[in-house]
């Protein structure tokens, strides 16, 4: 009995002393500001800042090797808190969200062949440049939906990715996951977009998609400031996005969409509210 108590007690004591000494001797000093910054970060470990995880970003910010406004999921709120912790001035980046520049679901766009492979856009793209006749359109196999750490992307029943403007934090994971670069980042307050990603000429687009941009330049003529047409594809100039809405009704293929009137057909998301831009509201 005594031997048992003494032995276990002895082992425990030796271990405790050893650990106590080790804790002093091998103590790693962590900057308390680093912990504070880590607290205010969202902890999504999404990598949007370009560093591995929130801990890596907190370290970089405190050491001053990286800007304090790169955490897109945290947004302006976390930038301000970080700035407060570090005693620097907050320079918030304009919030951006991802937009799928395509409305050509399986009903509206023609298929090149019947794809029965892995449920993954990157795999499908490797077979004759994807199963869609359109070289730029959404393949609809949901690679971006799986890449999104915030559940902000849904696939419509007809195979089109739709990104919720309210849930998207702008981490750009989906941009990296898409093999066709159909997802682009645009300012959160810009509601009007040309939802097409095909650089083919109008005649070719008409053959494979009912709702693609045919580069007719009507939008450019209606609102010259708000649009540019490059390589047979109209693009909204986001600095003048407020004027872009004027051309929506004029577009012959209806590929320009104002998101405040609702998401593309088939989406279950309710129409998003128009965010108030801090600069223009003031």
């Amino acid at each position, binding site marked *: 009995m005594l031997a048992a108590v003494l032995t276990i007690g002895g082992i425990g004591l030796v271990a405790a002393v050893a650990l106590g000494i080790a804790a002093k001797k*091998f103590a790693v000093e962590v900057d308390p500001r680093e912990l504070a910054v880590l607290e205010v970060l969202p902890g999504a470990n999404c990598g949007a800042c370009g560093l591995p995880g929130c801990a890596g970003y907190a370290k970089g910010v405190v050491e001053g090797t990286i800007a304090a406004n790169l955490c897109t999921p945290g947004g302006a709120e976390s930038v301000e808190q970080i700035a407060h912790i570090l005693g620097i001035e907050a320079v918030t980046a304009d919030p951006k969200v991802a937009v799928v520049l395509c409305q050509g679901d399986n009903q509206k766009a023609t298929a090149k062949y019947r794809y029965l492979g892995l449920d993954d856009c990157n795999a499908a793209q490797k077979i004759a440049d994807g199963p869609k006749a359109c070289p730029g359109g959404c393949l609809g196999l949901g690679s971006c939906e799986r890449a999104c750490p915030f559940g902000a992307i849904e696939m419509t029943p007809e195979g089109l990715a739709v990104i919720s403007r309210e849930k998207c934090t702008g981490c750009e994971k989906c941009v990296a996951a898409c093999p066709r670069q159909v997802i682009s980042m645009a300012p959160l307050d810009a509601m009007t977009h040309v939802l097409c990603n095909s650089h083919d000429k109008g005649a070719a687009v008409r053959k494979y998609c009912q709702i693609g941009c045919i580069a007719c330049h009507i939008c450019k003529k209606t609102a010259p400031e708000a649009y540019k047409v490059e390589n047979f594809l109209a693009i909204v100039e986001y600095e003048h996005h407020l004027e872009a809405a004027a051309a929506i009704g004029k577009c012959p293929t209806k590929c320009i969409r104002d998101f405040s009137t609702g998401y593309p057909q088939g989406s279950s998301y309710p129409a998003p509210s128009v965010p108030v831009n801090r600069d223009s509201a003031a």
Partner: protein
Amino acid sequence: MVELLLILISAVFVNNFVLARFLGICPFLGVSKKVETALGMGMAVIFVMTVASVVTWFIQYLVLIPFGIEYLQTIAFILVIASLVQLVEMVIQKTSPVLYQSLGIFLPLITTNCAVLGVAVLSIQKSYSFLESVVFALGAGLGFTLAMVLFAGLRERLDLCPVPKAFRGTAIALITAGLLSLAFMGFAGLVKG
């Protein structure tokens, strides 16, 4: 020498700790979503098992048996292994931040893992010599890593497969684990013991 090799092969394949003995199932299911993390966990387990078997062998033969208190084996081993792992974690954190990044986060997870304790207790039960118990622990760790990496590879592929809705998630993981265990049972005829 042949004896040592037999112990090693037997611990890796025939009596694989995860797939034949059902020890260490928790990290096997928990940390096996990616091959990379599975490998990190495996390395940590190999390391801890080997170190733990060295220390527990000395505890058993130099402390517990001379004082006649073998019945305190379990609690003494847990105490020693837990504090040892804690100590190793501190040393690694200070001396090699890179190694700590890849290994460190797994160390606290396995302080009282049943596979680690199992190795220590089993090598005492089988009355292995010092060298034998080290080889046994090494084999057990290698077997654990092998099972982890194989399973993680399978799960990575499963993520891309059209799994029926009812089977998605843990259900299909457990079925896969069962099939993998079935496959490892095929090694049973390889070495006797």
